């Protein structure tokens, strides 16, 4: 087991190197980058140096005068010494901006993940036990609609009905105008109020795949021989489903849930942007759009690490939860 984990970790590091190099390559090769537009801006000021001089100075300042390989290695070196650089857009250290924003995204992600689980698991189980019934069709359709719903469209619909027509929530932002005059509890409630619609959006949009996953696995388990045995020995249907079938469905379920835990930190780019929630997705969207290399590199690397970590966790959990699985 330990050998397996070590091997996977080594492989992950290798993959990470390749991924970061590809991203760095793309970011460096793109024209019209941050530095160029900055140089144009600076050189048009009255009495300024010509564009070429500014470009050279800025390139040297941002460490872009090295060739791509040298630049990449110095980035890696900085990365391992914990120096992630300063964000060009936010003009603060990348880690600081990251720390400011990631927790909000995590809270949003965690709450919506919680709702996803408590809604998707029971519905998936019900759909599987009543296969082909009207309930099953309704639940499957609901799940597929969730998958097919563009999040920006759904977010806009929610905004139209709940913010504009009913006036229950603000259109955008995390805090109200009178936030500073509120009591600490009032401030908490104010933020919570602003997070309702984004969390609803996130939950509905991502609930479908989990529900279908539960349903498929439950169906598989219900077709298994040991369920037939349980029925044959005269157990009540309730006991068959909740004691024998559901527990076995938990194996793949725990794996996939464990695997998606790191993803909670990745932020929701579209939803955060639609609702103006200053989370990591929102911050990185604007950094990426203007070509802020340090922040984008950090965010993309972070996402890649989360993906690798998720895969690793689900593999390990699979072996831990299911004793039948032997890892070679």
């Amino acid at each position, binding site marked *: 087991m330990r050998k397996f984990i070590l091997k996977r970790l080594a492989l992950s590091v*290798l993959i990470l190197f*390749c991924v970061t190099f590809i991203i760095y390559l793309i970011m460096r090769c*793109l024209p019209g*980058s941050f530095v160029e537009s900055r140089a144009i801006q600076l050189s048009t000021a009255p009495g300024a140096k010509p564009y070429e001089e500014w470009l050279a100075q800025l390139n040297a300042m941002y460490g872009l005068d090295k060739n791509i390989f040298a630049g990449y290695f110095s980035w890696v070196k900085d990365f391992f010494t914990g120096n992630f650089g300063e964000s060009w857009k936010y003009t603060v250290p990348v880690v600081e901006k990251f720390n400011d924003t990631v927790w909000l995204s995590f809270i949003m992600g965690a709450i919506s993940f919680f709702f996803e689980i408590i809604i998707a698991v029971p519905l998936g189980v019900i759909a599987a036990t009543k296969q082909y019934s009207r309930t099953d069709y309704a639940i499957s*359709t609901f799940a597929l609609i969730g998958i097919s719903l*563009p999040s920006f469209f759904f977010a806009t619909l929610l905004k139209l009905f709940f913010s504009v027509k009913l006036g229950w929530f603000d259109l955008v932002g995390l805090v109200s105008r009178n936030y500073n005059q509120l009591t600490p509890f009032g401030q908490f409630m104010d933020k919570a109020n602003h997070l309702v619609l984004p969390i609803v959006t996130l939950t509905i949009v991502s609930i479908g795949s989990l529900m279908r996953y539960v349903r498929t696995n439950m169906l598989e388990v219900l077709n298994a021989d040991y369920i037939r045995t349980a029925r044959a020995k005269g157990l009540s249907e309730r006991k068959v489903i909740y004691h024998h079938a559901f527990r076995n469905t938990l194996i793949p379920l725990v794996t996939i849930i464990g695997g998606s835990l790191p993803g909670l930190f990745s932020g929701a780019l579209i939803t955060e942007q639609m609702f103006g929630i200053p989370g990591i997705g929102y911050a990185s969207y604007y950094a990426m*759009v203007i070509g802020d290399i340090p922040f984008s590199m950090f965010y993309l690397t972070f996402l890649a690490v989360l*993906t690798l970590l998720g895969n690793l966790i689900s593999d390990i959990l699979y072996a831990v939860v299911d004793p039948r699985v032997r890892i070679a």
Partner: protein
Amino acid sequence: MSDKNEKTNAPAPEQKETYSLNDDRRVKVLSPGALVAKRFFRNTLSVVGLVMLIVMFVFSFVGGFISPYGEDEIFYTYTDMKKNYVSATENKVFRYQSADGQSFSSTLQAKFQLAYNQKKDSFEYQGVNYDVEELGKDFYAISANGTELAIAYQDIVNAPDDGDAVSYAVKRAALQAYTNGENSFSLDGRTYKIDKDSNVTLGGKDIAYISRFIVQAAEPGINITREFKERLEDAINNKDEEFRFTDESGEEAVYALEYKPDSMTWNILQDKSTYVKDTYGAPSKAHLLGTDGNGMDMLTRLMYGGRVSLVIGFIVVFIAAFLGVLFGGISGYFGGWVDNLIMRIVDVFYCIPSTPLIIILGAAMDAMQVEPRIRMLYLMLILGFLSWPGIARLIRGQILSLREQEFMTATEACGISIPRRIFHHLIPNVIPQLIVICTMDLGSTILTEATLSFLGLGVKFPFASWGNIINDVNNSFVMTNYWFIWIPAGICLLITVLGFNFIGDGLRDAFDPKMKR
């Protein structure tokens, strides 16, 4: 074989009773394809999905030909717009006119103003004494050493629209009479009359009119007539908010008055129909879903948008499937270091965060100002290139298990060449899984493209795409007031993606009878 059976069965069904119990013909034999089709059509959801997709395909691909409008045809309309027409000010400052052959410099004007403010009847400048004589209300004559130099007045004497300039003498006499409330005066033996509209007439002919208001055109080309001025003056005196006026060419318009206290002027706005782009026009008979922010027919845009979204979806999935089958097939069949290498590449691709990467690339294309058509091409290539690893992984897994089966040993024993083995015997066996994953991918690709276009980083104007149509909601006024701009596009998107997912789901169940569903 099954076809043959059915043929012999059909003409003589009554013979059925005579078949023996174990006769093959008692059993209806179906090919695997027919079985799949049968299972597929038994599933309500997949049939619904099929209908949805057919509707959307007809809408997008046939609709463009039926629609009487072009993709980027702009519509214009007449709309009533309030435009600044003229502005009117009540004159509160003195105006001066020097007598014939005299001059009255601006210094003297200032001195006069000073004397007026201090209510003196004379002032001195450079040793010369000037006398001020009040001739009427706000009307003064200034003279030095008994010679009249100039008159200062606030009521303005205007020459008629087609008349000659008013001479000093006439002006002076007219103002004197007017400011003292008389309705006639005589000069050089002729009698002039001032009527209640402050017209100065000589023998029934208008020679001037007097008014306190200065009327200025808001923009060049506006010809202010005498009648209009009078009408305006009446309206101001009556404190009307608007009035109607028919100009000399017979056009009647409504004019609204707007008093600006800070500059003490009246702005007169003309309500006039103007020819403009028909932006955000409400649904009507001509435009069933109204018009968008550029004055283009919404329904037609939706049709062309669907075409773009679907074509992009198909091309992207085709690229992904091609690469996926190629690499997955090679990897699965050969195994060993080839497999290892390709799978590590797949791992790397899996790990690249695709949405942020596409956003970065989209922003870079914005900076490079790539032409919209080329941009669409790049978008397809990028999306296709980022989504092949999933397909490659699936194909490899299938082929790994298939190549160990007996029929593959048989092909080897028969001496069939390797390419033939792969493409004739292995690949056909993975087609079901491939179709299912491609159908699902079509839905998700269309979603990705729509999201990008929504962010303004995908398909660009003048091309329509369902995503960039919804982009208008970034303006919250549009979101709140013009539902017909974005809700239909969102529904089209939802129906299409849902259709692909329903069909993909139905196909998966139909291909995999073990799962029953």
